C-alpha cells in the first residue's frame, strides 16, 4: 500500500517541524506558576520602618515587585535601571530575599532606593509562595493585584520595552517622567 511506505517520512517531517519550532523556544524560561492569581498573602516586616505589612501595602498598582538581595551580583547590575524606572514614576516594591537588614539598608543608602516599600523576607517564605527560585526576579502586579508577568534575571530597557509596556505604556521611553 503506497501510503504505508510514506509513513516514516511523514512522521519525520512532523518531527523536523517540531524541532525547528523548538529552536526558537528557550527551554530554561519558566513562567510564574501564579500567573493570573492574586499576589499571595503575607505578613512580614519592612526594611525602613517598624511593624508588618500585608499584600494590601503593595499600592498603587500596576506596580513592580522586585526580588533582590545584597548577595546577588546581578541585582547590583540592574539597580541603576530600577532607579531610572522609579524616576519615571513606575511604582516599585522591593522584596528583600533571605538577606541581612543592616547590609540591605547600607546598600540602599549607598546605591539609591528605587523602592516605595521594602518587604523583608528573611526566611524566604514569601519567596517560596511566589515561586522565586533565584534573584533577581521582577513581578508585575496589575490594578487588581494579580500577578500578570514575571521576569527572571536582570531588568533593563530592552526587556522592559519588550515585555512590560503593556502595563506601563507611558514609562517605557527614556526621558519620560511623571
Amino acid at each position: 500500500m503506497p501510503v504505508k511506505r510514506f509513513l516514516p517520512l511523514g512522521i519525520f517531517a512532523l518531527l523536523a517541524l517540531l524541532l525547528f519550532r523548538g529552536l526558537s523556544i528557550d527551554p530554561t524560561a519558566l513562567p510564574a506558576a501564579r500567573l493570573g492569581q492574586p499576589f499571595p498573602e503575607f505578613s512580614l516586616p519592612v526594611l525602613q520602618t517598624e511593624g508588618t505589612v500585608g499584600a494590601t501595602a503593595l499600592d498603587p498598582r500596576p506596580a513592580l515587585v522586585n526580588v533582590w538581595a545584597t548577595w546577588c551580583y546581578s541585582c547590583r547590575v540592574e539597580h541603576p535601571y530600577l532607579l531610572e524606572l522609579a524616576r519615571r514614576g513606575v511604582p516599585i516594591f522591593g522584596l528583600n530575599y533571605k538577606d541581612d537588614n543592616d547590609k540591605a539598608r547600607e546598600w540602599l543608602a549607598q546605591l539609591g532606593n528605587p523602592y516605595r516599600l521594602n518587604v523583608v523576607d528573611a526566611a524566604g517564605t514569601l519567596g517560596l509562595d511566589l515561586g522565586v527560585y533565584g534573584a533577581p526576579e521582577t513581578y508585575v502586579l496589575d490594578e487588581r493585584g494579580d500577578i500578570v508577568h514575571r521576569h527572571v534575571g536582570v531588568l533593563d530597557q530592552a526587556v522592559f520595552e519588550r515585555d512590560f509596556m503593556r502595563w506601563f505604556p507611558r514609562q517605557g521611553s527614556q526621558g519620560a517622567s511623571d
Partner: protein
Amino acid sequence: MIPELGHVSLIIAFVLALGLGAVPLWGSFRANVAAMNLAPTLAVGVSVFVAIAFALLTISFLSDDFSVAVVAANSNSLLPPIFKFSAVWGNHEGSLLLWVLILSGWMTAVACLSSALPLTMISRVLSVMGLIAVGFLAFSLLTSNPFERLLLNTPLDGNDLNPLLQDPGLIIHPPLLYMGYVGLSVPFAFAIAALLSGRLDASWARWSRPWTNVAWGFLSLGIMLGSWWAYYELGWGGWWFWDPVENASFMPWLMGTALVHSLAVTEKRGVFRSWTVLLAIFAFSLSLLGTFLVRSGVLTSVHAFAADPERGLFILIFLAIVVGGSLLLYALRAPSVASRVNYGLVSREALLMVNNLVFAVATIVVLLGTLFPLVMDAFSLGKYSVGPPYFNAVFVPLMALVMPFMTVGPISRWREDSTRRWMHELLVPAAVISVLAVLLSWFGSGAFNLWVALAILLAGWVVLGVARDVWRRLTQGAQGAPRWRRLSASFIGMTLAHVGFAAVVLGAVVVSQHTEERDLRMAVDEVAELGEYRFALKRLSQAPGPNYVADQAVFEVSHSGRVIATLIPEKRRYLASGQVMTEAAIEASLWRDLYVALGEPIGADAWAVRLQYKPMVRWLWLGGLLIGFGALITALDRRYRAQLSRSAAVTAAVDKQVLGLAR
C-alpha cells in the same frame, strides 16, 4: 602557523569529501569503473587530511597555544598533559572534529576491507559516507571552526577544562561513544546503497552485519563507560539519569539492538528486508538526532555543549536532508524489496519480530519522553518535565517483557516450531530458577524482595538457557570436529551479549532496591555505621594537586572488626576557574561498592558526609562490557573472515549461482 595549516587541511578534506560524495556515486549509475574506483582513494584521502587537522589541533592544545580560541576556552597551562590531550574533544568544536575523524576512520576501514564487495555497491557505500562527511565538515568549517584564532587579544592563560571533565573518563568515553554513533553510518550507507540498487538480498545483510555489530558493540561500551564515569565522578552514586543527552545515545543503541537482530534474520532467511533497511536508516538518524539535541540548546541538560540555536539550525537542515532523503528513497524503493512471509506464527522469525517490536516501542517511548517537554512548550501547553520516575516506570516493564524471549529465542527453530517443544525444553530450567530466585533474594539481603526475585528469575533463566545451549552444542556438534570449533564466533558473541544483558538487568534491580545511604555530620574520631560496615573518620588534611588544592578526609572502613579499606574523599578547588568539585572515594568489589563523598564543611573540623552501600553495582558495567565485547567478537566469525580474502569476482559468481538455486 600550525592552526592555519590545520584549517587548510580541513578545507582540503572537505573538497575531497565532496568529490567522494559525487563522483563514485555518479559513476555507479553510469557503470563508469574509473569513477567508481576513485572511491577508496578519495576515502583514504579524506581520512589523511582530517587526521592531519586533528593532529595539528592536538599540537595546539599540547603546546598551550592560547591564540587558538578553543584552547583558550578549554585548556590551561597548569592542566596535566593527558587532560590537555583529552581537552581537544572536551568542547563542541573539537568533539565535532573527533566525529569527522572517526567517520573517516570507518570510511577507510570499509574501503580497505571490502575487496569482496561488488564495485557498484562499495562505491555507493563510500559515497554516502562521503556525503555525511561533507555535511559535518561544512558544519565545522562554517559554524564551529576549531582553528579560530584570538590574534588580537591573545590571553596569557586559558579558562581551564571544566573540572568535571578532568578525568580519565573523558579520555575514553567520547571516542568509544563516537565509534558507535558514527559507526552506525556504515549500515546506514549499506542500506542506502541497497535501496539505490534495488537489491536487498541476504548478501547485503551478510556484508552489513559485521560492521553493524562492531559499531553497536562500541556504542554499548561507550554508554556503559559513560554510566560508570558519572557514578564515580558526580558524587551522588547515581549511574543513569535519563537525561536528554544520555537518551540521545541510548536511542540509537535501542534501535541498533533491533537492527542487529533483524540483520541476523535477513542474512539467514532473507526475510524482514524492508524492516531491516528501515531500522538501519532509523538507527543512524537517531545518531544524527542525538547530535542535534546535544548541540542545539533545544533541551536542557547537565551534559549539553554550549547551546547555540544557529548551529542547531544547520544540523537540523542537515538532518532533514539526510533522513528525509533516505526515507523518501525508502518510500520509493521499498516495495520492490519487501519479502514474503514464509514463516509460521511460532518460529524463530516470529520471536525476533517480537524483539524488533519491543525495542522499537522502547525507542519511541524514550523519544516521546525526551521530546514531550518540547512538544508541550511548542504548543504553549505549559512547561513539563519528564524524568527518571517516568522513564523507569515505562521502560523497565518493556525490558522485563523481552527477557523471557531471550531464553526461548536461541533454542527456537527457523520457519516452523512448536510451543510444546519450547515448554518441554525450558520448563525444568524455569522451575529451577524460580526456586533459586526466591532463595537467593532472601539469602542475599535478609528479606524477600519481589523485584529482586523477579530480576533473578528473568536473568537467571536467560543464563540457564544459554548454558544449556552451549552444553548442547559442545556435546552434539559435528563429529570429528574439535570441541571448541563447534562454537562459532557468532554464537559465542551472542551468548556473551545475552549473558551481559542479564547481568545488567540483575545489577540494576539489585542496586536500585538495596542501596543504602546515610547523610550525616562527622567530625574527627567519629564513627558511623552503615549496615555491617563501620566508617571511622580518622583525620582531616589538605593536599595540593597539579592544578587544584584539596581538602581531604581520611576514613577507615571496617567490617566485622577488621579494617578493610582506607577511603579518602576530597573536596577540590581548581585554581584557574575557582570551581569546587567533590571527588568521591569508592571501595569497589564484585558484590558491593562502598561510597563516601564529602558535602559541605560544617565549622572548622566537621563535614557533611554521604555514605553509601551499593550492592552489585559493578554488575551493570561488567554486563555492559560483556555486551560490547560479545558484539565485537561476532565480527570475527569465520564466514566474515572468509569474505575478506575472496575477490569480488568470485563472490559475484558464487552469489549468482546460489541465488539461482534458491527460489
